């Protein structure tokens, strides 16, 4: 994009700028004013998180307007250059001090209640319908459908991987979903409570998909739980990244989730299971042919 085109897009986006952004801001290819706020996401929890974020944001804005207003008023009105005489007796006022200590306490409690409610919901990992084990490693993800015998690795896609080399000469803008695309996305059904068992193979990673409102550390030796339920009408691709520094290629281990209709997912799972079984058998045969019989 030329500078001029960029400025034009900035200007038009600014004109239409609103604090609520479309859920798929990234997919629209915008870069400036379309990238100001948190995504609302595609799950009930992600929307609740967004609402909480906006609530606390506006509370902060209101407090800021009042406090900064008083500061700015003082700076303008009580200037020595305008002949202001200091009132040196004004050093203490129990009433006012009591008010500005108690009011924040009340506001904080009012904020803590909805936050705690949402947190309790997030932590409720009961009644899940599908369990997938997610293992972070240097540098990619392994997905394991524990009940269905399907497992695969997910790495940064080849095009991004080529373009991200030092001085590759490839313009990142020419690569589709630069750094946010993988070879094998995680496939999940919509409208299903999917449980993730998150762990790490070597160092700590963190599995983060903003549209689901899920970020969970993948820690070697620990198994963390997380869950999400994608809206029934929100099938599609959702992208995220590792969110915990995990070494040289920390910036190059994206996450892509392919949310499909329940029927499509079932078909995919069946196919993939059969395929993987076949591959495993073929590998077994090869192994038994090349290895001495005693190996079995």
């Amino acid at each position, binding site marked *: 994009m030329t500078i001029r085109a960029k400025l034009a897009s900035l200007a038009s986006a600014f004109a239409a700028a609103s604090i609520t952004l479309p859920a798929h801001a990234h997919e629209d290819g915008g870069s400036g004013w379309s990238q100001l706020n948190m995504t609302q996401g595609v799950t009930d929890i992600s929307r609740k998180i967004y609402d909480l974020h906006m609530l606390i944001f506006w509370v902060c804005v209101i407090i800021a307007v009042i406090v900064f207003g008083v500061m700015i008023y003082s700076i303008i009105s009580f200037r020595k250059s305008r002949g202001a005489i200091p009132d040196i007796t004004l050093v203490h006022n129990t009433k006012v001090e009591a008010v500005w200590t108690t009011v924040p306490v009340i506001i904080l409690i009012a904020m803590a209640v909805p936050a705690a409610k949402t947190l309790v919901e997030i932590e409720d990992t009961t009644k899940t319908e599908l369990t997938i084990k997610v293992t972070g490693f240097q540098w990619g993800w392994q997905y394991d459908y524990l009940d269905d015998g399907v497992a695969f690795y997910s790495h940064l896609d080849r095009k991004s991987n080529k373009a991200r080399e030092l001085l590759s000469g490839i313009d990142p803008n020419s690569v589709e979903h630069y750094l946010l695309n993988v070879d094998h996305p995680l496939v999940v059904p919509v409208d299903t409570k999917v449980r993730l068992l998150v762990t790490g193979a070597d160092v700590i990673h963190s599995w983060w998909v903003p549209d689901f409102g899920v970020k969970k550390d993948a820690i070697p030796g620990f198994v963390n739980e997380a869950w999400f339920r994608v809206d029934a009408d929100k099938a599609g691709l959702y992208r995220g990244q590792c969110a915990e520094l995990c070494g040289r290629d920390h*910036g190059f281990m994206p996450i892509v989730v392919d949310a499909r209709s329940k029927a499509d997912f079932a078909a995919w799972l069946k196919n993939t299971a059969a395929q993987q079984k076949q591959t495993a058998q073929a590998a077994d045969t090869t192994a038994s042919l090349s290895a001495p019989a005693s190996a079995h």
Partner: protein
Amino acid sequence: MADELAHAAAHDDDHDHKPHGWRRWVYATNHKDIGTMYLIFACTMFFIGGGAAMLIRLELFQPGLQFFDPQFFNSLTTMHALIMIFGAIMPAWTGLANWMIPMQVGAPDMALPRLNNFSFWILPFAFTLLLSSFFVPGGAPAGGWTMYPPLVLQTGSSFPMLIFAVHLMGASSILGAINVVVTIMNMRAPGMTLLRMPMFVWTWLITAYLLIAVMPVLAGAVTMLLTDHFFGTTFFTAAGGGDPVMFQHIFWFFGHPEVYILILPAFGIVSEIIPTFSRKPLFGYEAMVYAVASIAFLSFIVWAHHMFTVGMPLAAQLFFMLSTMLIAVPTGVKVFNWTATMWKGSLSFEPPMLFALAFLFLFSIGGFSGLMLAMVPADYQYQDTYFVVAHFHYVLVPGSIFGIMAGVYYWLPKWTGNMYDLKLATWHFWLSAIFVNVLFFPQHFLGLAGMPRRIPDYAVQFTDWNMVSSIGGFAFGLSQLLFPYIIWKCARGGVRVGNKAWEGAHGLEWELPSPAPYHSWTTAPSDAVIARGAAH
């Protein structure tokens, strides 16, 4: 006791017979000389750490990797943090403490001058060790300043250098803190009661206790890393029965009070500057003291808010959310008191006041984003993104760094006897205040839009705000060159100032001549002088 010490010191050094040449600095026991060395060291580290920041912003100017290997980029972010925290901000506070605390409490010098020399001279060795790690096989540490295992255990030959550098910095901080506590407790002039002490002395006293409490915890944590790496222990390795998350708990038990170690002295300085340039006593002095003490206490029970995503029990997450939100109450009290100090004052806007006002506005913005980060469900989206980077840079740059600059511009005439170039310092202020926002404000957007921190390259939708941030960064970095130039120029000469460099100034330091004599209060100030200084 205080009497005896003050008396003995007064007899020892009646004349300004300071040693000359290199001996004056290497054998230094004078609080002003040591303070100067601390400040020069901090300024040097500020520019080295700033240089690393410039390289980071250079690589992040546009998507794709143009300059550095990702591993080297990780070294830059790691070293930038370590240098700025342990090399720039903490030594700058100790330098200011050295210069000002004896003058402000009516003492001739710090209580433990030789220890003072030792605690300073550890630092150049610590940082030579740390910085030389760039040149060993495997490069400088790249696992983040938080040193989380198991990643940090993958560090190359620089691993033991990192651990010993941290040990040395910690030892230096502890010794410096002991000196501050002993000086304040034993060297106050008769009549300088605790509740007459200037706010800078109060905040430093509390900071010193925090340092003594938590630096050993950091030392313990990195020692366990060392034995895990070299002696076969498995404190933090799950395969051997250890626990990598335990490191994070121990680290942040140090790390959160550390955050307040970096900011509390700034609270003190701002509490001195705003009354001076409002020509009105500080509003609610006692409330300010109690607020600082409450913040210090709370800082010990909020550490796990740095690690909400590690998978803690629900009850623990709720506890740390509530305790974190509570910190907003005493912090709010401080901001309201500063505002009330300006109310019905008579304000003028010399450079120290300008920096203090920018501190007031911009630190508050950092406070607001801190409140947002306390909300656990929202934190799941903010954690480890540029939103966090924006948050802590707002509290550290226009917070701590502006606090240090405000303090230097406030006391520089006292140190040198000359007024500095006010016009140039005002330029320094406006350039800093504008570009610090161009640099860090867009990082809020980047974080909310989904950009993780500590990545050398990013998806193309993050391009525009990274460019804006980088431009702000370069401009901010360049503007800082004015700072040492203004100080150097002032040290060489300028318009002479009287005892009281600023019309509205109160406090014992302004009762001494400018430049302050080599040995501050060789005879203790009288009660009347102390009462005149304690303007609250």
